[in-house]
Every structure is written in C-alpha cells, then in structure tokens.
C-alpha cells in the first residue's frame, strides 16, 4: 500500500506541503516575528518591507505573524470538526447498518436528505443558530459532515454483518459491542481515513468561508477567513492584506486534497482522478 502511495508524486508533494503547514502552525509562537495581536498605528497599511515581509494591516499588526497564527485556527478547527463528524457519522452509520429495520430506514433517509443539501449553506444555517465561537464552529462543521461519514460507514457494515466470521463470533457468544470493535471497525477504518483527509480540506475551506462572512471564530483571534474579510476593504491600496491569507488557504486545502486523492487511489485503484 505504501509503495503505491509513494509512487504517486502528487500525493507526496501533498504530504510534504501538509507537514510544512502543520509544523508552521505548531511552531507559530516561536517563529512569528511579531505578536499577532500587537497594534502599531505608526506602521498601519505598510506594504511588504524588511521586518514585515507580508506587510502590516490597518491596525498595524504584522500580516506574516497573523498568517502563521491563523494556520493554528484553521488546522485546529479542521481536524477537530472532522473528528466530530467522523465519530458522530460513523456511530450513526454503524448503528444503522448493524441494527437494520426501521431505525436504519430513518437514519439513512435523513442522511440522504442532508447529503443532497449544499454543505456550505447547511454550515451557515447551523452557525446562524448556534452563534459564533470556536467550539460552536467545530460543532457546526462536524454536524454538517457527519452524514458523509455515516454513508461511508453504513455500506461496509451491512456486508460485514452477513460475513461468516461475524456469525461465528456471534455463535461463540460475542456481543454486539465486541463484534463492532473487533470486526466492523477495523474493516471500515481505512475508507474512513481516506474520507477524513479529503474532508479535512473541505472543513478548512468551510471554516474560511464562515469566518469571511463573520460567523466563525470571533476577532481579534487571527483566522485566514477574517483576515481576508478585513483586508477586502483595502483591496485597491493594500491588496496583500487579502491575497496572502488566501494563498495560505489555497495551499493548505490543496495539500490535504492531494493527500486524500493519493490515499483514495491506493484504496480504489480503478478511479483515476
């Protein structure tokens, strides 16, 4: 499996980029040249210059430091919301597939309906109701993504349920939980991880969208989305305020998409995207 993945150059570039972004986010407190929140009005709206390679925003804050700290917000929200979606969705999918009957019907029809709705609009709706803030944002994106994971977990659970080794386990007296832990989860984990890396990319993009609208993490915490929102006002005289954070989003989302594509090629070699 690793050999197939290693041969995929795009996926390797993705891994390298993703690792770099993750490292920059972890190291942000040490490598940021300035405090991301510290204002210096004498420097406001200065373009890129020595000491401030990506320029200074309208409050006199260093853009590079804010982009680096913004990476933390994006990655934390991205990974935590994927985790929420993965847990809630997998649980729903497995329970539906394992129990069958009316419960399965209700869960899977609800999943179908939610899947057919634009993720972003659903995220906006949930955020409008929950209100802004980091925890709520993670919950909102997680909820929106859970039907996708439910769908992925449901199919294989259905087929594994009927396999002889599961019946054998049951005959020897294993209960549902044991079968879930030892037979079903290990069998669907691979597919769920592929989904997780692809949806990490989407989660980061949704976070940026929500922050841009002002429904995400509240200022002054730097996020790429709200940096762009603040920067748009100065598009004519200080375009770097919105272009640099945007570039950071693009590179990060692309990196996770490349890794996800690579993992999917390994899992399903027939599909060539």
């Amino acid at each position, binding site marked *: 499996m690793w050999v197939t993945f290693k041969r995929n150059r795009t996926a390797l570039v993705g891994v390298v980029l993703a690792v770099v972004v993750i490292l920059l986010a972890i190291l942000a407190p040490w490598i940021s040249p300035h405090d991301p929140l510290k204002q210096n009005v004498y420097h406001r709206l200065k373009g890129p210059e020595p000491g401030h390679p990506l320029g200074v925003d309208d409050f006199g804050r260093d853009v590079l430091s804010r982009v680096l700290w913004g990476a933390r917000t994006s990655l934390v929200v991205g990974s935590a919301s994927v985790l929420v979606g993965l847990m809630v969705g997998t649980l729903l999918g497995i329970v539906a597939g394992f129990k069958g009957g009316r419960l399965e019907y209700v869960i899977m029809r609800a999943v179908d309906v939610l899947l057919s709705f634009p993720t972003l609009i659903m995220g906006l709706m949930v955020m409008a109701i929950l209100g802004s803030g980091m925890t709520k944002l993670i919950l909102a994106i997680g909820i929106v993504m859970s039907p996708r994971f439910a769908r992925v977990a449901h199919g294989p659970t259905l087929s594994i349920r009927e396999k002889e080794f599961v019946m054998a386990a049951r005959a020897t007296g294993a209960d549902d939980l044991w079968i879930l832990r030892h037979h079903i989860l290990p069998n669907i984990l691979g597919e769920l991880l592929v989904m997780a890396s692809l949806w990490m990319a989407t989660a980061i993009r949704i976070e*940026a969208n929500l922050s841009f609208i002002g429904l995400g993490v509240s200022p002054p915490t730097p996020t790429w989305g709200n940096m762009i929102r603040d920067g748009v006002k100065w598009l004519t005289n200080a375009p770097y305020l919105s272009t640099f954070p945007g570039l950071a989003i693009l590179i990060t989302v692309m990196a996770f998409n490349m890794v996800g594509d690579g993992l999917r090629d390994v899992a399903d070699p027939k599909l060539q995207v």
Partner: protein
Amino acid sequence: MLRAGEKAMIAYILRRMLVSVPILLVVLTLVFLLVRIAPGDPAVAALGDYASQEAVERMRQRMGLNKPLWMQYVDFLGQLARGDLGRSLINDVPVSQQIRRVLPYTLELTGSGIFVGLLFGIPLGIVTALRRNTLLDYAGRIFGLAGLSVPAFYLGILLMLLFAVELDLFPVVGGGELSDLRDNLHHLFLPALSLGLIMTAYITRMARSAMLEVLNADYMRTARAKGLQERVVLIRHGLRTALIPVVSVVGVYSIVLIGSSVMTEVVFSRPGVGKLMVGAMKQRDYTTLQSIMVIYASFVVIINLITDIAYGLIDPRIRYE
C-alpha cells in the same frame, strides 16, 4: 398523441416529483425546528431590545409564537402550501416579494456558472485524458486541484483585483439592471467567471477520470480492431460512455455551486438569494431565513430531477419504468 416512450418519461418525471415531496418535507421540518431552537426570541429580534413587555407580547401573538409547537408547524406548512412565505421580521415586506426581486440574479449567476463549467470542463477533461502524462495533462490536473481547493470568495477577490482594480474592465459591485442586457452582462461577467472556473475544475477532473477508464475498455479496442476511424471510436464509443458519470457529478457539483454562489454574491455585493440569506442571518430574520431554505431545498430537488432525466437521455440502458 404521445408515443409510448414519451408517456413513460412523463410518468417517470411525475413519479420522481412525488418522491421529492418527502425530501422537501424533511428539509422544511428541520428548518422549522432549527429556527425554533435558535437562541433569542424572534419577537424581541423583530422589535429590538428596548421594546416594552406589552409590545413583545402583542408581537408574539401576531407571529403565532404563543401557540403550541405542533400548531405552529401546521400553520407553517399550511402557509407554504398556499405559496405564502410570510413577512420579514425586520421590515415587514412579504418575503416572496423580496425573493422574487433577487431570484433572477441568483439564477443567472448559477446558470452561467454551470454553463461555463460544461463548456470548458468536458473538452478539457477529454483532452487531458487523451494526452495523459504530458505537460498539458499536468497543467490540467493542477488547475483541477486548484479549482477544487480555492474558496469561491477568494477566487472572486483575485478576479476583482485583476479585472476590476488593475485593468478597470468590469464593475466591482452590484448586479446591474435586469432590464438593461448590456449593463446586466457587464456586472455578471466576473461573478459568473469565478463560479464557472470552479465548475470547470470539477468537471475537468471527473471527465478526465471517466475518459481514462473508458480508453482502456475492451469495446474500444474492438471498435479500433473493426477498423473504425479513431475519431468515430472516441466520439461514438468513448465519449457517450464517459459522459454518464460526468452527468451525475454535474448534478452533485451544481448543488455545491449553489453553496459557492452565496459567497460569490457576498464578495461582489450582488443582489441574490444568498446575499439575502446572509443578511437575514445577521439580523435574525427567521421568517426570511426559513423561506430561503425552502427555495434552496427546491433548487436541490429540481437539480436532482434534471440529473436523473439527463441520465436516461444519455444512457440507453436506463428505462423510465
């Protein structure tokens, strides 16, 4: 007289529309519940924080908020069935009137986005598949990945910077006059290009992958062995099969594109359903919000219906029975 095939098709479409009813109903119920569990009293939201207790009570009465939840639900569905979307909590204008004003802008925006995507995406996908592992293919793949990854609002900003700020070719904000075609298209160009590029990227990726799969198929080899011209083999045998999965993703991505259109409308300050929705969210205008979700749910149902019908037209194996 209708032919048997046409009759079957119409029956199929009617049946599919009936199936959409429960989907719409589930979405409506979810929206109804979500709006009701939202923090804050809609009556207070409508009147402002300084309204007197009596005024709030009168407003609650008028909005039907004192009734039990199930009665509110029945009222809500009853109103919708009569085509009554209620009045905005903020400015008391009928919501249907507001939506009717901005809907054409959203339709022209998403419609042209999908059109641009189909126009460029399918040929680009085919060409990159045929020239696999060449420079052109790599460029196409990078474009596909970038389009998949870029947030719509950021792409909008970049296009704005280039075409409006630097080159001063197109206006930055607004939707133009609908009655003035020139002005309207002038305002539509950048937002439509922004959504169109994203759609092109999606379709290119899928068309390339579908075409690659078809190129290796046995029947393609057979067609060549029969001595058919390469062009005929590609178009008649390859393209038609490759288009089937593409049609289904066009449906799925059109729905994604509707989500992106919200952001594009916000960035370009363009009138539209998405911009109306974001405004309603910020002002906690729940009646408007709830009606807009109904509109979006209908979009989804209609797109799924069109996708299913298109499927049948391309794939002769699918019968409307």
